[in-house]
């Protein structure tokens, strides 16, 4: 990867370790309060900016079921994945369908850093600095035809390298989708790195989607196919349990998951006992994206 993109960020641009350590101490103090606060009400994280979690955490705590269902499985087993060469098939309602080598997808693109809070549907969040480009650039380049309404994405499914495929937890290959306007939104990026480094395999190397106002599973990893189409695409989690996972899956504190409330989230920031913060509508990107959903009832279109 680094042969066609040198990260413009240096180690110094990533939050210095001293800041993490300092924060960790603050959190350890808050955790002590947490034990006493059980009757006293919410223990919420002090309002803080988007302060990235340590790289080691973001790369060792992952949901990537193709490598196993435990959070540690992807970091343990994803090394087996071959990410070079890599190509993405772009087809459907586009002017220039075809199979594009990753080098060609990335050619001439300016890679930006985007620090987003990743809110998992499981009720936790962590802040990660991604490096990538807007998906809209790629879609504009291949030429989306009129009448298209949705974009479907597919993850690689290579059983020899992805041991999790032996288990039928989901209907492989993993598939996700966005409405076209969501895909074209400036917040929606294709990430090729994080923390100024190449994306580790467990985080979806070599290229993945990041949609910050939706639950993390929408941000599909290791993409091999992008299909622009008229109808709403098949999505793996909705197929597995439609009552729990809707097509939109916007972060929404008002709509609880059958197994847990979504009103708060555990902030995974490296502290031993994560504090809770109130979950924000659209994961805090309300100003940017609420307009996309003005004619939708988000409690039924969750």
């Amino acid at each position: 990867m680094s042969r066609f993109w040198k990260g413009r960020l240096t180690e110094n641009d990533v939050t210095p370790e001293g800041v993490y350590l300092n924060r960790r101490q603050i959190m350890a103090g808050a955790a002590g309060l947490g034990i006493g606060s059980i009757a006293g009400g919410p223990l919420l994280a002090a309002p803080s900016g988007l302060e990235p979690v340590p790289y080691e955490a973001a790369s060792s705590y992952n949901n990537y079921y193709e490598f196993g269902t435990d959070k540690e499985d992807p970091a343990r087993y994803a090394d087996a994945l071959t990410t070079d060469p890599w190509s993405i098939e772009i087809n459907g309602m586009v002017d220039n369908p075809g199979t594009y080598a990753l080098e060609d997808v990335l050619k001439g693109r300016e890679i930006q850093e985007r620090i987003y809070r990743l809110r998992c549907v499981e009720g936790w969040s962590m802040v990660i600095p991604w490096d990538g480009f807007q998906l809209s650039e790629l879609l504009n380049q291949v030429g989306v035809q009129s009448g298209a309404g949705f974009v479907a994405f597919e993850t690689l499914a290579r059983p020899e390298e992805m041991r999790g495929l032996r288990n039928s937890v989901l209907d492989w290959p993993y598939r996700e989708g966005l409405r076209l306007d969501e895909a074209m939104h400036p917040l929606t990026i294709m990430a090729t790195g994080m923390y100024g480094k190449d994306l580790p395999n467990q985080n979806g190397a070599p290229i993945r989607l990041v949609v910050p106002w939706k639950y993390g599973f929408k941000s599909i990893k290791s993409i091999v196919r992008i299909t622009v189409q008229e109808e709403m695409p098949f999505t793996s989690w909705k197929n597995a349990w439609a009552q729990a996972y809707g097509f939109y899956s916007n972060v929404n504190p008002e709509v609880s998951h059958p197994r847990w409330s979504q009103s708060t989230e555990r902030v995974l920031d490296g502290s031993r006992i994560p504090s809770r913060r109130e979950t924000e509508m659209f994961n805090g990107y309300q100003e940017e994206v609420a307009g996309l959903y003005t004619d939708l009832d988000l409690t039924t279109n969750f």
Partner: protein
Amino acid sequence: MAQVVNTWLRRIPAWPLYVIGVLPPAWLLWAGFSGRLGFDPVKAMEHQMGEWGLWLLIAGLCVTPLRRYIGINLLRYRRALGLLTFFYIFCHLLIWLILDVQILSLIWEDILRRPYITVGMGAFALMTPLAITSNNLSIRKMGRNWRRLHKLVYGAALLGALHYILLAKGFQLPPFIYMGVIIALLLLRLPKVAKRRSH
């Protein structure tokens, strides 16, 4: 063979089980707080305590079939197994309450509205009277009712395995294996199964 084992077992008292049994949860807490359980130690502790609790529950359910079908008598260890099961599940519950959810209103909402939590709390509720009456005085005072009461453990075991099935994301095999083992151990107790064997 069973006789030899039983003779051997007669020399081993039950009390060391309590001492040994406290070590794993203590280790787990220490490992969690000292950063040895990965990036989300609270979840790791919570899940591990629950799984160990199931193991102990299953071990306790094995005592009767082992005696009936193989002749190995572990009866004198059953109280320790049962009390440790309760202790482990209580730790599992405390970790969830204090370290995970933390917020009282959310805890209530979860108990009332999330089937897997409701079921888990049901299992805990069934185990509580069993733990309270696991002493010689209660056995003496309650007579036959003590045995009747302690059949609640069957319900607790089924609810415990159901709790695991309901919380697993997607289709995963392990919770079903636990349920299968528990159902098999309960079936071995049916009078018909036992009778067929003695003929």
